[in-house]
């Protein structure tokens, strides 16, 4: 995922043009070509989705540096509480340090992703059920001290 960060905008544009049927996107930086399959394509498309700021006013937080929470291991993401089925996080939601943000399930082993500190969810990069790589951006927190 890391190597694609720099192409994020280009990718979003390409996928927006191609729509949901884009099976594969190819970018070239000259020497090499980068091909992105469905899986990564979906992940990246999300960054282009409009972000709503409903529950909390973030205008004061603009100067604060956002905190990127990354995926701790390959697997499928779940943003739902596995007992209640309710969403764990929503954009704009206030989060406490240690609070469960997501579960990553791989080969029947589930890993909990917790908030590194208090904050507000500014952006979520993947959708519930998506497969994600190690170190992929999961969500962005605006820290609150």
């Amino acid at each position, binding site marked *: *995922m*890391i*190597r694609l960060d720099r192409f994020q905008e280009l990718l979003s544009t390409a996928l927006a043009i191609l729509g949901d049927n884009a099976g*594969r996107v190819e970018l070239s930086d000259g*020497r*090499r*070509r*980068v*091909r*992105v*399959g469905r*899986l*990564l394509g979906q992940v990246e498309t999300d960054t282009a989705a409009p972000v709503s700021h409903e529950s909390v006013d973030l205008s004061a937080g603009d100067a604060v540096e956002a905190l990127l929470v990354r995926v701790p*291991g*390959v*697997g*499928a993401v779940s943003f739902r509480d596995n007992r209640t089925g309710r969403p764990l996080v929503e954009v704009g939601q206030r989060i406490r340090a240690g609070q469960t943000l997501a579960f990553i399930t*791989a*080969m029947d*082993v589930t890993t909990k992703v917790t908030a590194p500190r208090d904050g507000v969810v500014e952006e979520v990069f993947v959708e519930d059920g998506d*497969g994600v*790589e*190690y*170190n*992929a951006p999961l969500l962005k927190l605006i820290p609150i001290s």
Partner: protein
Amino acid sequence: MFKKILIANRGEVALRVIRACQEMGIATVAVHSTADADTVPVTVADESICIGPAPVTKSYLNMHAILTAAKMTGAEAVHPGYGFLSENETFARLVQKSGLVFIGPSPDHLAKMGQKAEARKTMQAAGMPILPGSADVLPDAAAAKSIAAEIGYPVLLKAAFGGGGRGMRVVRAESELEPAFLQAGSEAQIAFGDGSMYLEKFIEKPHHIEIQILGDRQGSVVHLGERECSIQRRHQKLIEESPSPFLNSDQRAKMTEMARQAVARIGYEGAGTIELIVDESGRFYFMEMNTRLQVEHPVSEEITGIDIVKEQIRIAAGQALRWRQSDVTFRGHSIECRILAEDASHDFRPSTGVIENLHFGLGPGIRIETHIYSGYQIPATYDSLLAKMVSWGLTRHEAIVRMRRAIRETVIEGVPTTLDWHTRVLDEEDFVRGRYTTHYVQEHRFSG
């Protein structure tokens, strides 16, 4: 045939396998650590998945992450390359349990050949000669004497838990055996806390020669000739060639056919290599079997024209070999130089850095297998192999002069490499005459 294969490796071998898949119309998934995100195999694969951070235990040895990546991408088979998990029985079983195909032999064969003693017993039963020696720990000097008398001097005394030459003695006459046994035993006791000793036939001028084998699930086995791998230091091969300049055609025919039959007897499937130690007179002994693709497989491909990686994939997909032994033809001679990011003038000290200028000599009879490019940052975490330069010629002489010429045109700047060392060897008389043993590297030290 598989629609998608995941390659559980990195570097030149990952690229090698991806290329084979592409040529077969099979989609590829490259898995990689964060350190390898910008590498060529990741770029040319159809899909790529980052499976963990740089340390191999968390990425390329992380079975769980690799299998998850395979599941996520819908890969139907896993090619392990060489090294890493390629000979790991547990991994092979996990791959199978996940409903995927492990491109390699059965887990049982991996297990059997993974243990040296077990492997020798199995292959001896299958008809391969084994280096004569004490099967078990020697109770006393008298027992040592009786076995030595049987197998003939010189013999090698070896500490059961030894290493680095300690607790080891070459004994050339019976009169020297008892004192050597006692000395080595007490040396081993002090160094390793255990004085147990073995004894085996000592080979003065050994050759490391190996036989490339392909076996299918239908029970057919062919060999692709032998490879001479004696140019090595501390078991790290530096130059390999096929055919071996040391063997005559009778010796060659005998050892390749014997290996082929032994492999057929144990019901092995996939690509494998029978490693032999060969003495001055051409007597050979089974040492071990490598149950995977070898780094030096290209030299066998060059002389037979058979793509070993594609055959591995076909065999794993259940296809029968398309040749009987008599259909396999051998033409010319091939040499491989492993160009390493190592400083040969400082005892092959590994180096890291950024490849600044890169240009390979190409042209007739030259094949390059590499994942590096101009601007490539060599990660400190992995091995030092930068490129395999492979030459082919109608004769051994032509293979040598083509390799010399290609290396002369090659420029790799930014890190010390073994290019100069390889150039020296290719000009050195013993190498040119094909007269070398596994002692070659230590006997021929070239000043920087």
